[in-house]
């Protein structure tokens, strides 16, 4: 990715600031949507076991939190309003990724080979058929497995207006990287057009930027976004941490990209520099697939009997999680110091999940409870 500087770039799919803000909202939705999935798998691991899987999931979950914060910084920089409390911000699982990838579903499930398969789909590297084209035909969505899963859904996955490429309902982004590439193109184009009018796209209040002072050791270096350069840097960091830089397995900071971190779990071996994709040469990854709590896949509140302690715990978790998203929204809209409190509040999130995943569901032999993340309507 290089910034075109000498001649005009053509408009892409993003041609107005409103469209850009829609994309960025969807980006925040997307980054957040992975967190319940990764945390459910992480805390389904038996304590003191599966250290390799634990650390791989831990690192990626933390980096998703950075991505969420970076997306919020970009949103603020272009005068948008990050809002994690909007109805539908948290998807109903199993969900399709909010960037419009519709050929697979993302369930809440315990750590398993299936889960790793899903993680690899989430983090898959870009695969656009030709340069400059970041979307593929939606026909991929006719994957029989997905269609079958759709039939068994107890709800239809929400496909809102943001879940398709604007104006191209038959097409979709193939990867998160391509989604961000489109946004980078969009901000570059828009800033070019604004400058022609002697204006700038970056009119947001700088005091809303989350800076390293409030956000550090949380998945990499936070980038305060104030202009096109810092904006592109922030967006590239998100894309690279997910899928690697320039087709390699590492990002620009020399860290293994998410796709390849997860692939280590599938292949059973760690990557070592300067390994090539798909051929890790490091020490073996040790996994005990059995040392996992048998958490119900896609648990819903209605799985918990009325009046049961489990139901109360699940409700309390959803309320706390809703409150947590409210606090993050305040942190992203002018009170970045609240992120310091997020550190200990995340212990609450952990404890809430752990309380559920370690307890069996009554009458469901051998299946444990899990967090439902049904936060809409859950008020603290």
């Amino acid at each position, binding site marked *: 990715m290089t910034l075109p500087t000498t001649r005009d770039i053509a408009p892409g799919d993003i041609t107005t600031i409103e469209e850009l803000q829609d994309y960025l909202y969807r980006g925040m939705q997307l980054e957040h949507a992975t967190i319940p999935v990764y945390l459910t798998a992480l805390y389904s691991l038996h304590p003191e076991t599966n250290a390799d899987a634990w*650390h791989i999931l*831990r*690192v990626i979950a933390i980096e998703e939190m950075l991505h969420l914060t970076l997306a919020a910084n970009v949103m603020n920089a272009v005068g948008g309003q990050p809002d994690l409390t909007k109805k539908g911000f948290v998807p109903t699982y199993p969900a399709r990724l909010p960037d419009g990838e519709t050929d697979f579903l993302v369930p809440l499930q315990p750590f398993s080979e299936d889960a790793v398969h899903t993680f690899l789909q989430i983090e898959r590297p870009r695969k656009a058929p030709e340069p400059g084209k970041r979307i593929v035909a939606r026909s991929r969505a006719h994957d029989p497995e997905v269609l079958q899963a759709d039939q068994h859904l107890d709800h239809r996955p929400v496909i809102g207006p943001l879940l398709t490429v604007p104006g191209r309902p038959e097409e979709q982004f193939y990867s998160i990287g391509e989604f961000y590439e489109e946004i980078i193109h969009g901000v570059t184009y828009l800033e070019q057009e604004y400058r022609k009018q002697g204006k700038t796209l970056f009119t947001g209040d700088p005091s809303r930027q989350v800076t390293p002072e409030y956000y*550090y*050791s949380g998945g990499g270096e936070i980038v305060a976004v104030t202009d096109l350069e810092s904006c592109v840097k922030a967006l590239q960091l998100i894309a690279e941490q997910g899928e690697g830089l320039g087709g390699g397995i590492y990002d620009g900071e020399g860290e293994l990209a998410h796709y390849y971190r997860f692939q280590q779990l599938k292949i059973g071996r760690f990557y070592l520099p300067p390994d090539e994709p798909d051929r890790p040469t490091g020490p073996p990854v040790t996994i005990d697939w059995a040392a996992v709590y048998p958490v119900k896949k896609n648990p819903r509140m209605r799985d918990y009997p009325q009046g049961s302690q489990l139901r109360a715990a699940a409700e309390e978790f959803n309320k706390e999680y809703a409150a947590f998203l409210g606090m993050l929204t305040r942190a992203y809209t002018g009170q970045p110091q609240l992120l*310091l409190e997020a550190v200990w509040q995340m212990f609450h999130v952990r404890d809430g999940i752990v309380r559920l995943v370690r307890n069996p569901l009554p009458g469901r032999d051998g299946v444990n409870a899990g967090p439902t993340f049904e936060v809409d309507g859950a008020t603290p």
Partner: protein
Amino acid sequence: MTEAAEHEEYDVVIAGAGVNGALIAKHLTHAGFRVLVLEAGPGSAWSLDGYSRHLDHFYAAASKGPESPWPPAVAAPQPDTADIRSGAGYFVQNGPDKYGSSYTRAQGGSTLHWLGVCLRMLPEDFELRSRFGVGHDWPLRYADLEPYYGRAEHEIGVAADVADQAHHGIEFPDGYDYPMRRIPLSFSDQVLADTIDGMRVTLEGESIALQVRSYPAGRNSVPRGAYRPVGAVDADVDRHDMITHLGERCAGNTSCTPICPIEAKYNAGKTLAQADRGKLRVLAQAVVSKVSVDPVSGMVDGIEYQRYADPASPRHTVHTARGRVYVLAAHAVENAKILLASGLGGGDSLIGKGLIDHPALYAWGLSPVPVGAYRGPLSTAGIEDLRGGAFRARHAAFRFDIGNDGWRATTGGPDSSVVDAVTNQGLYGTKLRAHLAATLPRHVRFSLAVEQLRSEANAVTIDPRHLDAMGNPRPVISYRIDDYTMGGMAAAAEAARQVFRQAGIADCTDPEAGGWFPSVRRDGEVFHYHGMGHFGGTHVMGHRAGESVVDTHQRSWEHRNLYVVGSGSFPTMGTSNPTLTMAALALRTAEHMTEALAARQPIRQGEPSGF
């Protein structure tokens, strides 16, 4: 067993991979010198897997004492705080008083279990004799150490705000600040500060105003400027990826002592990992047993060490490591023990003599309002106002540590509070819950650490009748708490009573609650004290050979290519936790060694060490 290290030539051989050894190894390897570090204990804490096993060990331990995550190897036994209770253990307690402290013999040393308090010593602590007519003066002044304090704060990664720390004449250079912002004050600190700030206590007619003050902590916090916190380390570069984003900030876990679950607290393994690994060899499970001295030149010509493979067995092989320069960085007690076992002490020698600690009292009470006890780092603030002043001519100074951990250390709360409510008060069900909810959050604890002056009668000696499983001597500890320190204890206990009274905190201090703590008696008052792990004074530094063991560079007067480093070099310790000061001294020593080594040609094979 073949030992590559035995056949290799090193510029520097260091005994001990704690904070001193690690700092010196880091700086000398970066200056281009080849360094061998011999560590008596296991090296397991230096890998993520190993560290995780120590964490599991801690979680599984019934008693969560400072040693609970760090079980010693048979070959490298260590004191345990429970020894005093059992009357057994590694130390041979020769009395008349018990020495209550412990340390960790493992790669990383006692920084594995420390709390992380990084106080600078007060300027007056260096000049006790000239200013107050008691104790000793250092051969260095605060101003001499000040630049090294600043460097040590960056090496360790200390979180504090200069604005809080300039008291009792402590000065910082213009524009200086700690590498990270202070750890946020706990709710407890804030509630107590509301009451205590500006409060006065009167000691022997002298009125002193108090203030709750954040203390500098070796725990990662919000970085300043370009500083980047150092999180967890893994010596195995193949698995380096696993420690990404781990421990780069304190998350408020409650077990700083004995183990930070995420390595947000400094341990010496972090410094050792920053050494030039191409110039460094670290041998764990290598117990230094003897320093060999050339009888003609008086120079050290080798260090004998015992290598063992199995931490559960004393089976070992004996080897000798050779370098141009040698450093004993094995701990104040172990340094003295090694020198004595090598026949280098005795008679008028001061080796082993002058052992000090901070014998500490507890004071605990029930606050009228909740302070949110049992949450966060074990402590985050203290009261520093009684660490210095004219009273030091009469009795010892002392420091208040303000606990966030309720009565954990004093009565075994909150567990013991539950037991008490059930068995003594007959509570159960909702009444029990209500009682606990109403009382546990109000638990307040002060720890009152009292200064101690060096006395030659307080000593580490060895005795051929008392050997460990490897045949190495166990430290024989002679220890007496003198009237000067007991005067400080009396003043500290009185100050705590005055604070409790003025703050409306019901004083629950019950000497019998810690009945197994050792005690001393003065004018009918009994003081139960515990050790702070602040060993010092056993190879004291000074201006002249006859009056000290090492010079201001911690270089042995008798053996000029030997450095004996650590808090054993301290002539006084004031009321500061010793780690920061010894780190500053170690950096000063490393600088000196670099110059001295560079000024001489490397020795050739077969020649006597020509440092």
